[in-house]
């Protein structure tokens, strides 16, 4: 019989959207994480010319309506854009490709990730880093062996926030890579589509439930990890 929550009323492309959203969000988070940590570190600890500009740029996707971010991406990273063009010639294609969706999601999620990590870095007592330096650890090692382990809770928090945001990202993604079932149709695009037509609510609700379940699972998991890590870092 099948109620509205059971998979049989969801067309197969809905399931493909779920799979794609997971893939896109995971890639978006994983690829942007190192850059996010680096950016957060630079903003937290270094004084350099253009620091304000970098900080502004990082926050931009938060401030702009997502559609605008999508347009900017389309203009710059599209096949004829100043960045997308050359990239396309060396075979790196974002347009209408899931990697473009990941790019859009990653950019939209970036400010959240950077903020969380940066706050953690600012909370690390520089005296511990100094202690590591006196023991002979070069700067990068100090980071890897002292700073990074101590900011892990923040890194995890940042990664979850980014993942959740990526799972929900819609405006920039659809504007940049549009909605091609199986390639760029993420969960939010599918939900949006269902909501546009009278009577589409049922399917939309099913997808919302799936999306919430996935993100909550990730959330709970990461909370668990985060707590364990925090306890480890606090040393208790």
């Amino acid at each position: 019989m099948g109620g509205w929550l059971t998979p049989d009323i969801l067309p197969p492309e809905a399931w493909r959207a779920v799979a794609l959203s997971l893939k896109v969000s995971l890639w978006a988070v994983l690829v942007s994480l190192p850059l996010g940590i680096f950016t957060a570190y630079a903003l937290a600890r270094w004084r350099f010319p253009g620091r304000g500009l970098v900080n502004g740029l990082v926050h931009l996707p938060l401030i702009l309506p997502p559609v605008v971010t999508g347009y900017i991406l389309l203009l710059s990273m599209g096949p004829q854009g100043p960045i997308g063009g050359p990239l396309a010639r060396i075979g790196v294609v974002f347009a209408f490709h899931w990697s473009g969706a990941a790019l859009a999601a990653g950019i939209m999620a970036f400010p959240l990730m950077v903020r969380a990590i940066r706050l953690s870095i600012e909370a690390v007592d520089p005296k511990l880093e100094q202690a590591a330096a006196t023991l002979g650890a070069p700067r990068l090692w100090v980071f890897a062996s002292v700073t990074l382990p101590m900011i892990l809770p923040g890194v995890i928090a940042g990664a979850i926030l980014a993942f959740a945001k990526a799972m929900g990202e819609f405006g920039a993604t659809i504007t940049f890579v549009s909605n091609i079932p199986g390639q760029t149709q993420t969960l939010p695009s599918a939900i949006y589509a269902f909501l546009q037509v009278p009577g589409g609510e049922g399917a939309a609700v099913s997808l919302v439930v799936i999306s919430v379940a996935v993100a909550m699972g990730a959330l709970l998991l990461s909370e668990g990890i985060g707590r364990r890590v925090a306890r480890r870092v606090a040393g208790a």
Partner: protein
Amino acid sequence: EQARLTVFAAASMKNAMDEIAAGYEAETGNAVDVSLAGSSALARQIQQGARADIFISANTDWMDRLEAGGQIDGDSRVDLLGNAIVLVAASGAAPVEIAPGMDLAALLNGGRLAMALVDAVPAGIYGKAALQSLGEWDSVAPMVAQADNVRAALALVATGAAPMGIVYATDAVAEDDVHVIGTFPEDSHPPIIYPAARVAGSDNPLDAGFLAYLQGAAARAAFERQGFVVLAQE
């Protein structure tokens, strides 16, 4: 105190509605607030009791839905405007004849066809219907890139991300980077109709007057300037 009227209108009508609201205010002294959003959003808000006075939808489905639910006054409903869908391409492309056997897939030459969401957004629904009736849909479907609204589809063409797109005739009007290479025959898709009606919960005395104004000469001129076909007879 100035009398006010709230109109919920499909976002694609912004330019025309701005002009009409200004004209109406100049003529009657009454202010008009136009809330522009997707038809689905507006219809849902009316379902949930939004205090709108007039609703102009970009398609008939949502208006039918509201009428069935008693949220609009069926007697006041008029088919206000019509529109056409066109095939657009980057400037410089040759015109094509839109007819069965045109082999749109070959024309795309591996590129994407930009459309609005083909199952959700009116322009996409009409476009899909037209391609189906022309027998092109099955071959083209895998190449369709669907945007969340027509303007986004147009942008895909304007930026060169997609070589061609299907949009409303009204959208192609002012875009320099894009030009129309063909218009879909009227009979290839269900009629494109923008119905207008009075919201049932509205007790605004200006309702009837504004509905009439929408069908008047001033409004007609404004609509036509934006490329709409005015259906309503005065």
